[in-house]
């Protein structure tokens, strides 16, 4: 089949048919477009089906979260971290409280750390399910979307029992978590769910989508991000690992209690095409779901007893003066929080380094020379969330 490599034959720049003048077509993709995962806007310059220039225009969901961080106190701002990556809010909570705790130098109870890991990994699975679903949708496959949402609902149920919210939780606080395990059956239900997911549902997705011939044709050798590019653009998460780099903050820069667990880091291998193509990035996510299941099982098996809050819930957090950058692995990649504190109740400055923001930048380079359909595949495989790009 076609290789997906498009030769730039220079047609766009000159009059290739004598007497007929041609120019590039400017195409405005978004902010309301089904393939842009929210309100991203891409300005394209195309010659027929081939894209010559991609310019992402951001800010359609700029919600001023960094300004708000300077106005509300540390505990209140956890609410806003939920709304960054609203597909994996627990991971965002975790990133923020880790940063605050780094400055506070507070000892978090073991039980709280385990609960954080479990909820964050469940959130990661939910986020990856949506990533698979929307990527399938970009490829024109409707049905996997519905299946993935079906399984996601189960995760939301579990987290709702834990945290009280269906989608956005506000669950973690500096120094611990808000609630303990809700009832005796919760742990068993989580284990049942991940067993079901591992044994049956992942196989369904693989049959329906991953190893579908058309799907492979659409994604293999498409949108290749090589290792050098991925590192230069500071790509992280599945995008970096899809390019074959074995890097994961959970293992290489451990935070929380991840050092206690045994898990693998799936990387892109170029099974179906080149290393770093859309299929690799997609498959890294599928395999990460399996690893997340492993982590959850270990964390629940070794769930210690004891307190789950180092700081009482009704106490206002004050952070000593100083500045610290802390990073954690979210579903999309490395979330960094750079917090500057003046010793008060609110942060003086809180810069958020969001993974999607950095991952999306690579489109400017890799999107050139692709076909319009491949650009949709590329943007879909990056799995961006506009909430954390625009903040």
């Amino acid at each position, binding site marked *: 089949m*076609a290789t997906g490599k498009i030769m730039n034959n220079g047609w766009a720049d000159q009059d290739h048919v004598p007497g007929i003048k041609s120019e590039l077509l400017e195409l405005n993709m978004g902010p309301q477009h089904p393939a842009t995962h929210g309100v991203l806007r891409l300005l394209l310059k195309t010659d027929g089906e081939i894209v010559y220039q991609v310019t992402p225009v951001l800010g359609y969901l700029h919600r001023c979260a960094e300004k708000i961080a300077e106005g509300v106190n540390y505990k209140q701002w956890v609410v806003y971290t939920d709304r960054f990556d609203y597909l994996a809010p627990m991971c965002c909570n975790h990133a923020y409280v880790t940063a605050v705790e780094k400055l506070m130098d507070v000892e978090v109870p073991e039980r709280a750390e385990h609960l954080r890991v479990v909820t964050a990994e469940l959130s990661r699975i939910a986020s990856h399910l949506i990533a698979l679903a929307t990527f399938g949708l970009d490829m024109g496959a409707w049905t996997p979307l519905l299946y993935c949402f079906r399984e996601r609902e189960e995760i939301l149920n579990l987290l709702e029992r834990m945290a009280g919210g269906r989608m956005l939780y506000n669950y973690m606080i500096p120094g611990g978590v808000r609630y303990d395990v809700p009832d005796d059956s919760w742990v068993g239900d989580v284990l049942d769910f991940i067993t079901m997911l591992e044994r049956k549902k992942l196989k369904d997705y693989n049959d329906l989508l991953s190893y579908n011939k058309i799907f492979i044709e659409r994604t293999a050798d498409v949108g290749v991000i090589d290792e050098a590019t991925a590192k230069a653009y500071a790509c992280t998460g599945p995008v970096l690992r899809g390019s074959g780099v074995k890097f994961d903050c959970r293992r290489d820069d451990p935070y929380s209690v991840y050092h206690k667990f045994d898990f693998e880091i799936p990387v892109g291998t170029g099974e179906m095409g080149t290393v770093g193509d859309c299929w690799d990035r997609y498959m890294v996510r599928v395999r990460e779901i399996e690893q997340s299941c492993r982590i959850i099982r270990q964390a629940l098996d070794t769930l210690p007893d004891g307190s789950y809050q180092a700081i009482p819930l009704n106490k206002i957090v004050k952070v000593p003066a100083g500045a610290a950058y802390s990073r954690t692995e979210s579903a999309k990649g490395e979330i960094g929080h750079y917090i500057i504190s003046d010793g008060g109740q609110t942060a003086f400055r809180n810069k958020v380094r969001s993974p999607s923001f950095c991952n999306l930048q690579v489109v400017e380079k890799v999107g050139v020379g692709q076909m319009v359909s491949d650009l949709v595949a590329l943007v879909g495989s990056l799995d961006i969330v506009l909430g954390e790009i625009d903040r």
Partner: protein
Amino acid sequence: MEILTSWLQGLPGFGGMSDQGLFITGAVIMATLMFTVMALCAIVFTWMERKVAGFIQSRYGPMRTGRWHGWAQAIADMLKILGKEDIIPAEADKGLFVFAPLLVLLGSLLAWAAVPWAPGFTAADLDLGLFYIFAASSMVVIGILMAGWSSNNKWALYGAARGAAQMVSYEIPLALATIPVILHTGSLNTQDIVIAQQGGIWHWFVLRDPFLFVAFWMYFIASIAETNRGPFDMPETESELVAGYHTEYTGMRFAFFFLAEYANLFLVSLIAVMVFLGGWWSPIPGLDFAPALTFVIKGVLMVFLNMWVRWTLPRVRVDQLMYLCWKVMIPVTLLCIVGSGILMITSGAAG
């Protein structure tokens, strides 16, 4: 048509009519009938599509409208669309914009004339029936191109360009796949093609010889592409081109495209039934009680197959689509023609 005119002649008041008058009256009745069937099938199939999609996606689909499983859903859709505001964009090419949906509808309506519903019951019993169907339905391409161009919208233009390339290309394997059958029947008359398949399921062309079997699947794939449905819905490609060639169409004009899509879907399914699946003959010889009903049921089953494919597979890319057509399907269908011909000669079937 002959049946209808002779029946009309028997009616009081029509007896004294001239032949021409009878013909015109019959034609008007037939055209109205066909249009009704077409509108009806659009209504039935939109409902069916949503139910089938729901079934595949483990949900219900329409449940409330009309109480029983939302049977009135498509009727409500159509009535609502009738009441919508009709917008013609200020920058659009108005003449073409208005005419395009009509042309698309006309293209599919014309083709319905040669469908053999039952023995002797065809709106226009033409000697070149099959040829006529393919010729008439290719008008749809012009309509889609007009719609995309006149909308003055870049997405619509993309959709139209893709659609034109796709439909023009896929007409070739579509027609080529039926040629082995024509070799067998020696006729392009739709009635003759069905009559040649009398005598149970083993006499249907799809099971006559291996080449015909391959030709049937080639026809099926090409027919999906010809009706612009997933996984070949290039002209619409909801996740890439917003809504493709009908991005700017509202209300009634959009309904025409909608109607034509489902009419075309049923039409290609009926042609598949007519050419390969034994037309109105039942699978067991001697059980041909209701020929028209058998014919329609087979058609609906084919439509179901089509929907099943649509809701299961991802979409192919536009260049892969072209590759599939020109480098795979056309050679294979040509091979089918040769192979089927050789088999006919060796088995002595060629007259």
